[in-house]
């Protein structure tokens, strides 16, 4: 047990009083609590709820409501964050109801889904919230029973006093607990005493999902609500010139057509204000289908943009971003990247004397890797409900970064933030895309103009062609080996459109005496945004594919080769800024080696590839097995080892790793957004190829390294190394290394060779 000072914002405890009739406030269709039984008996609702703090409400019958602070997009925080509170509160999980907390960062601090940081940064605060509530319940019992606080214990929602044999459910003490002073310090459990954290608990919304209950913003309706769509230029590099809406307005159900401008003139954008097309044509009508049809009748003229510069307030101060005019095409991108890569880059890290080491090398291996833009393609297309009146704005939408868009909304609508209410609906996927909340502003402007609630819906085509893509990347690696096959120098030069993917202080930096990392970036008018494990999603994969080739050249087993380097980084690290822990890194490699039977128990006829990576504070390694059936690769098994510290909800965490593996394979094989004269070449799933059932691995085994280290991220870290595990296995199967993503078009050539 550890005693910690409560650092929860005082406002978390502002109002500790009874909420009469709270049951009605919930409005749940399924009051089944968090029961794992598929057909649970509904929980009986209490007569009164008592708010102990902002995270915990306890009913007079002992039913507990726990608020989940962060936006949910499938990473299952809506279950795992309340589990952390419940652990320290010491309640029976079966009697817990989870609610989405309102957006209020003054109380709930970081309400942001991104960077695999939710559990990591929420960990201590959530534990404190549960522990503080438990403390107040114990205080109430101590007072009621006239016994010393230290003698009051708890177990699964019941307070006990051993000496006198007294006990009471939390519900009986809830009203008194709500009036207790907020503790200055609380005791947190020892990891060994956890009974909820580390045990698999079902997704608290699964029942609603499988029965089709309304959960997403897309599913919401409001009295008098209109449906809106926005039309953006078909091509990057173009903007709105004029609209002829005569025909569209005459179509049934159409209420209005008007241009909107999502930023006021002179507005300084924040980091998440990426907005490819700030001038749009809005079309508003009664029903979705009417608007979908009528928009086709709009006659819109577009004109080329000029070179522009915008000011963006970023994490490192305000920057000027140049947006070049012109209609860009993928072949031009490739040529520009190759040309830029041939020039010196900006040196980000340099250890030893790499030039000299390369000169004296017995062997130099140089390889260049590329990857295209990727669209996020969340299953739920972009949408948002907005109701803006003269003095208020209500938004309900799928949003990963509400705090940032609230500021944008406040500036654009001229309303103070406290008059803007953002409801974070369950998101049908996010993957980074929904950190960029321009659609909240669009919906709000349309509602303001229409003086009515509106639901803004992007069609799939709108969603896929609006930009905010994963950038296109390019990396050239060089490795120098000495006579004995030892890696003596390593050089990476990486760049992209329009950002570099480089992480200069990441493995194998620190494990090689002579190391050079350079980067570059090229301007574009095609916008980009965070995409599951930004930058790592490219550089992790290609670095691990390159190391596989270097290991082969050195005549070493790829796992043994990496372990040797990690041992070097542990015992005699080069440089001081290495961002990984070589022991934990080696730990996942050893775990995946043993769990997969690498080298000792290789399945016959199966081609295996291995890769490991560190990002977002966690470590992941995969061994991917594939066979060639009728000339087509079939992934039979993926074995994954993960070190993300304490695993809060193991089965849900496993699900997330499985998803990352499938996502990695899908994007490595098929993912690509290309352009012709500014026009995205793919608009929907007919030509943008996504991984499907039959292409998914037949089995994925996930192993977590046992740990009592505070939890770190999981949504992103398993993703980047999948690209390399696949590339390395494909090499073993085909004898050909693939340097250009996506891989499937290259495999088709291989398949034709082997079958033709």
């Amino acid at each position, binding site marked *: 047990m550890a005693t910690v000072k409560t650092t929860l914002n005082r406002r978390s405890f502002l109002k500790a009083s009874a909420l009469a009739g709270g049951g009605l406030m919930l409005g749940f269709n399924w009051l089944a609590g968090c029961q794992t039984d598929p057909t649970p008996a509904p929980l009986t609702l209490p007569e009164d709820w008592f708010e102990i703090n902002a995270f915990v409400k306890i009913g007079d019958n002992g039913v507990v409501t726990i608020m989940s602070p962060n936006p949910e997009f*499938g990473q299952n925080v809506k279950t795992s964050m309340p589990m952390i509170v419940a652990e320290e509160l010491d309640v029976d999980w079966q009697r817990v109801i989870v609610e989405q907390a309102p957006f209020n960062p003054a109380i709930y601090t970081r309400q942001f889904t991104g960077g695999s940081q939710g559990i990591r940064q929420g960990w201590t605060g959530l534990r404190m919230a549960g522990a503080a509530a438990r403390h107040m319940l114990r205080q109430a019992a101590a007072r009621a029973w006239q016994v010393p606080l230290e003698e009051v214990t708890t177990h699964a929602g019941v307070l006990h006093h051993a000496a006198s044999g007294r006990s009471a459910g939390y519900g009986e003490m809830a009203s008194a607990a709500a009036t207790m002073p907020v503790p200055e310090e609380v005791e947190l459990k020892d990891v060994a005493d956890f009974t909820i954290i580390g045990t698999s608990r079902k997704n608290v*919304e*699964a029942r609603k999902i499988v029965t*089709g*209950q309304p959960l997403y913003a897309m599913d919401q309706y409001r009295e008098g609500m209109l449906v809106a769509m926005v039309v953006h230029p078909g091509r990057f590099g173009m903007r709105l010139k004029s609209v002829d809406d005569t025909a569209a307005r005459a179509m049934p159900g159409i209420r209005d057509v008007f241009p909107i401008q999502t930023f006021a003139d002179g507005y300084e954008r924040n980091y998440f204000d990426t907005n490819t097309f700030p001038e749009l044509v809005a079309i508003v009508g009664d029903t979705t289908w009417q608007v979908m049809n009528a928009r086709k009748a709009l006659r819109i003229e577009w004109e080329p943009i000029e070179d522009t510069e915008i000011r963006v307030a970023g994490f490192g101060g305000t920057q000027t971003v140049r947006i070049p005019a012109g209609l860009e095409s993928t072949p031009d991108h490739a040529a520009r990247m190759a040309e830029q890569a041939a020039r010196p880059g900006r040196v980000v890290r340099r250890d030893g004397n790499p030039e000299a080491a390369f000169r004296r090398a017995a062997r130099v291996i140089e390889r260049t890797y590329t990857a295209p833009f990727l669209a996020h393609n969340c299953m739920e297309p972009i949408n948002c409900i907005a109701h803006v009146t003269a003095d208020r704005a209500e938004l309900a939408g799928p949003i990963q970064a509400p705090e940032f868009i609230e500021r944008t909304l406040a500036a654009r609508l001229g309303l103070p933030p406290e008059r803007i209410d953002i409801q974070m609906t369950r*998101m049908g*996927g996010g993957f980074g895309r929904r950190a960029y909340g321009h659609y909240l502003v669009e919906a709000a402007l349309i509602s303001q103009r229409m003086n009515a609630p509106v639901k803004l819906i992007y069609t799939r085509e709108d969603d896929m062609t609006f930009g905010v893509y994963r950038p296109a990347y390019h990396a050239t690696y060089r490795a120098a080996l000495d006579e004995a096959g030892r890696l003596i120098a390593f050089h990476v030069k990486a760049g992209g459109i329009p950002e570099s993917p480089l992480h200069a202080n990441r493995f194998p930096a620190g494990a090689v005496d002579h190391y050079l990392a350079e980067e570059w970036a090229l301007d574009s008018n095609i916008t980009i945004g965070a995409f599951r494990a930004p930058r790592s999603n490219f550089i992790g994969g290609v670095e691990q594919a390159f190391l596989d080739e270097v290991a082969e050249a050195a005549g070493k087993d790829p796992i043994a080769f990496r372990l040797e380097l990690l041992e070097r980084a542990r015992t005699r690290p080069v440089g001081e800024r290495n961002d990984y822990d070589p022991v934990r890194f080696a730990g996942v490699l050893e775990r995946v080696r043993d769990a997969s039977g690498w080298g000792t128990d290789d399945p016959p006829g199966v081609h295996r590839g291995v890769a490991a990576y560190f990002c977002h504070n966690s470590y992941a390694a995969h061994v991917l097995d594939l066979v060639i059936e009728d000339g087509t690769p079939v992934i039979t098994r993926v074995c994954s080892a993960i070190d993300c510290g304490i695993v809060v909800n193991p089965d849900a965490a496993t699900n997330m790793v499985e998803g990352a593996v499938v996502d990695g394979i899908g994007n490595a094989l098929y993912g690509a957004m290309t352009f012709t004269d500014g026009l995205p070449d793919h608009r929907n799933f007919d030509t943008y190829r996504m991984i499907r*059932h039959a292409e998914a691995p037949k089995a994925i085994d996930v192993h977590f390294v046992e740990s009592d280290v505070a939890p770190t991220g999981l949504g992103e870290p398993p993703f980047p190394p999948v690209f390399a595990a696949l590339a390395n296995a494909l090499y073993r199967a085909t004898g050909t290394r693939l340097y250009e993503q996506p891989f499937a078009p290259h495999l088709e050539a291989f398949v034709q060779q082997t079958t033709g």
Partner: protein
Amino acid sequence: MARFQLTVNGRDVEVDVDPGTPVLWVLRDHLQLVGTKYGCGIARCGACTIHLNGVAVRSCVLPVSSVGEQAITTIEGLSADGTHPLQQAWLEHDVPQCGYCQAGQIMSAAALLARNPSPSDEEIDAAMNGNLCRCGTYLRIRAAIRTAAARG
């Protein structure tokens, strides 16, 4: 606009809509049955899968005028209380991540099991290949279908 009599989840309903309106939008915008999802609008993702006389169809490309007397079943009507063997198996395997595709997945799987109570893995893949899951829950979907099939 025209009037259409439909049977949805065993209930008779009447809607007054353009005859070309896809059933997806009739369900969502006119009948407030929002379990059926919009994902692509071109029959390439399966999010909008419903049953027409027990057969899985993509409602985003099914004009309301073509339904006639055929019975429509949506995820809300698959079982009265969420106890269809597939819904139960989905909970046991804790399949969903974001959940957005799952109603369509379950409807495709239910139509499969109705015509083929013990499908092979290849038959499962073939029947389910039109249903995208961006979150990558394919393995759990497969496992849940096997579980439900094994129970018969």
